[in-house]
C-alpha cells in the first residue's frame, strides 16, 4: 500500500496526463458529433504535449535561458551548471508538436465546413443515413 502511494506520489503527473489523454481518446472514438470528435482530438494531443513538457522538468532547476553576462564578446562569465537549468529539448519538440496539432485541427476544421455545406449536418448517424440514401 505504502509503496503504491509512493509510486503515485512519484509519478502522479504522468498519471494525470494519461487520464487526460484517455478522456480525449474516448471522445474521439465514442462521440457522435464530428466537432466533439475534433475537441477530443485536441484534448488528446494537448495531453501528450503536457506529458512531454513534464519530462523536461528537473527538481531545483529553472527555465533554460542562461542568466548572467552574455554580451557575447568571446568569453562568458562563470561556468554553467547543467543542474541549474531544465532540459530544453522537450520544449523544442513540443513547439513542433503544437504546430502540427494546430495544422491538423485547421485542416479537419476546413473539412467539417465542407461536410456541413454538403450534408447540412455533423452528426455521424445522420451522415450515415444520408450516405445510405443515395
Amino acid at each position, binding site marked *: 500500500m505504502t509503496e503504491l502511494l509512493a509510486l503515485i506520489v512519484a509519478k502522479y503527473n504522468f498519471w494525470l496526463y494519461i487520464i487526460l*489523454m484517455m478522456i480525449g*481518446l474516448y471522445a*474521439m472514438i465514442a462521440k457522435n458529433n*464530428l466537432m466533439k*470528435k475534433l475537441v477530443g*482530438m485536441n484534448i*488528446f*494531443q494537448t495531453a*501528450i504535449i503536457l*506529458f*512531454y513538457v513534464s*519530462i523536461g522538468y528537473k527538481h531545483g532547476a529553472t527555465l533554460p535561458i542562461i542568466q548572467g553576462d552574455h554580451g557575447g564578446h568571446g568569453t562568458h562569465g562563470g561556468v554553467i551548471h547543467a543542474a541549474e537549468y531544465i532540459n530544453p*529539448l*522537450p520544449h523544442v*519538440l513540443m513547439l*513542433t*508538436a503544437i504546430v*502540427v496539432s494546430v*495544422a*491538423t485541427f485547421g*485542416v*479537419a476544421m476546413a*473539412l*467539417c465546413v*465542407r*461536410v456541413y455545406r*454538403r*450534408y447540412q449536418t455533423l452528426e455521424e448517424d445522420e*451522415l450515415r443515413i444520408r*450516405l445510405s440514401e443515395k
Partner: protein
Amino acid sequence: MNHMPAILVLAPLSGAFFSGLAAWIKPWLSFYIALAATCLSGVAAICVLGDVMAAGTVQYRMAGWAPPMGIELRIDPLNAMVLVLISAIAFLNLVASARSVDREIPDRAPSFYVMYQLFVVGLLGVSATGDLFNLYVLIEITSLTSYTMIALGEEGRSHLAALNYIFIGVIGASFYLLGVGYLYITTGSLNMQDVAVILQQIPGSSSAVLTAFVLCILGVWIKMALFPLHVWLPNAYAFAPVGFARVVAPLMTKVMVYVMVRLMVTVFGLEYVFNTLHLADIVVWLGVIAILAGAFMALFQTDLRKMLTYIIVCEIGYMVGGAWLGNTLGMAGAILHILNDALMTFALFLALGNIVYVRKQVAFSNLQGLFAAMPWTMAGLVLAALSIIGVPPTCGFFSKWYLVLGAFEAGAYHFAAALIISSLVCAVLFFKVFEICFFGPMATSHGHHDHGGGVMTEAPVSMLVPLGLVSTAIVAAGVYAGTIVNTLILPFLQ
C-alpha cells in the same frame, strides 16, 4: 562534401514553394517546376544509392552538428532502395498526371502540385532521416498533405473519408509520438543509432521499453492499415482524385512498412523483438488474418478501384507477417515485397487512372470490351495483375517465393497457406475483371473484322509511357530479384 542526401529532400521542398510562387506568374509553370524538382531528387536518390553500394552507409549531419545533438540523415542500402523507389514513382506519376489533374482539379491545379511535392518531401524525409522525432514530423507532413489531397476527390464522400482518415491517422501518429516519448524518458536520446546503443544496456524486462515498442508499432500499423486497423484506407483511396491515389496507394503504406522494419531492425534490434518479446507468433497470425480478410473483402467489390484498395490491405499482411517470421528469409521477403508491391500497385493504379481518364466510371459494368478499346493499358494491367497473383517472371512471384520459404523455415505453415490462398483469390478477382474486359458487350461480340471488335480509345501517350516503364520494371525486378536480395537486402540485414 557530398550533399546528395540533403538535395534529395530539399529539391521537392523548395520546388513546392517556387511552384507556389510561380503560379501567380503563369499557372502552367508550377507543373514544370514540380517535374524538374522531382526529377532532380530522383537523380540525387540514384547517386546516393550508388554511394551506398560503393562505400556503405552514408551520413549527413544537418547544420553540421554531430548526432545525437544534431539531426542526421542516415542512408543504408535499405532506405537507399526505398528512396529511389519513392522519387521514381513520384516523378512518373507526375508525368502521368499532366493530363488527368487538369481534368479532375481544373481551377486549382497549381496548388495541387505544391501539395504533391510536399507529400513527396514527407515520404523522402521519413525514409532518409535517422532521428526518431524528425520521423514523426515528416510522417505528419505526409499525413496532412494526404488528408488534403484525398479530400479533393468526389464531392462529399471524399471529405468524410478524409475526416475519418484524420481521426484514425492522428491516433496513429500520437501513439508513435507517445512511444518516442517513453523511449526518450528511458534513453534520453532521439537519434536511432544512439537509442539502439543505450537500449543494449537496459534490461529487456523493462516495462517502459516494452510500452514504447508496442506504442510505436501500433502507431505504424494504424498508418499502414494492418487489417483490423484498415478501416480508413478503402474509402480514402477509392474517393481520392486519381492523380493522387496513383502515388499514395503504392507509397504511403510501403513507407510505413519501411518504418516498421527500421524500428524493428535498427532501433529495438531483432534480438529484442524476437528473443525477449514473445509476440512474433501472434503478429504472424495477424498477418494471416489480414491477408485472408483483405483478399475476401476484395472479392465482394463491384468497383475496380475499391477492389484494388482491398488488395492493398491484403498485401500489407504479406509484409507484416513476413517481417515477423523471425528469420532472414522472411525479413528479406518482406523487404523485397516493399519494392515489388510498390511497383505492382503503381502499375495497377496507373492503368486504373487511364481507364478512369477514358471511361470516367470503373464499376465492373463499365469495363466491357476494354481489351479491344485500350490494348496497351490492359497489357500493363494484365502484367501487374499477374505479378499480384504471383506468376513468374514478374516480381510478385519472387517476393512470394522468399516469403513462403521463410514461412517453411519458421514452420509457419498457416502463413504459407494464406499466401497461396490469397494468390488463388487474386487470380479469381483479376480474371473476373479480365473476362469482363475481354468479352465486349454481348450484342457486338461477333463483329467479323480484324481486331476483335471495338475502336481504339486509348489514353494519351503521357499516361501510357509511365505504365510501360513500370511494366518493364516489374519484369526486371523479377528476373533480378536474386541480385537485389544479395546486393541490397542481405547486406542490410547482416
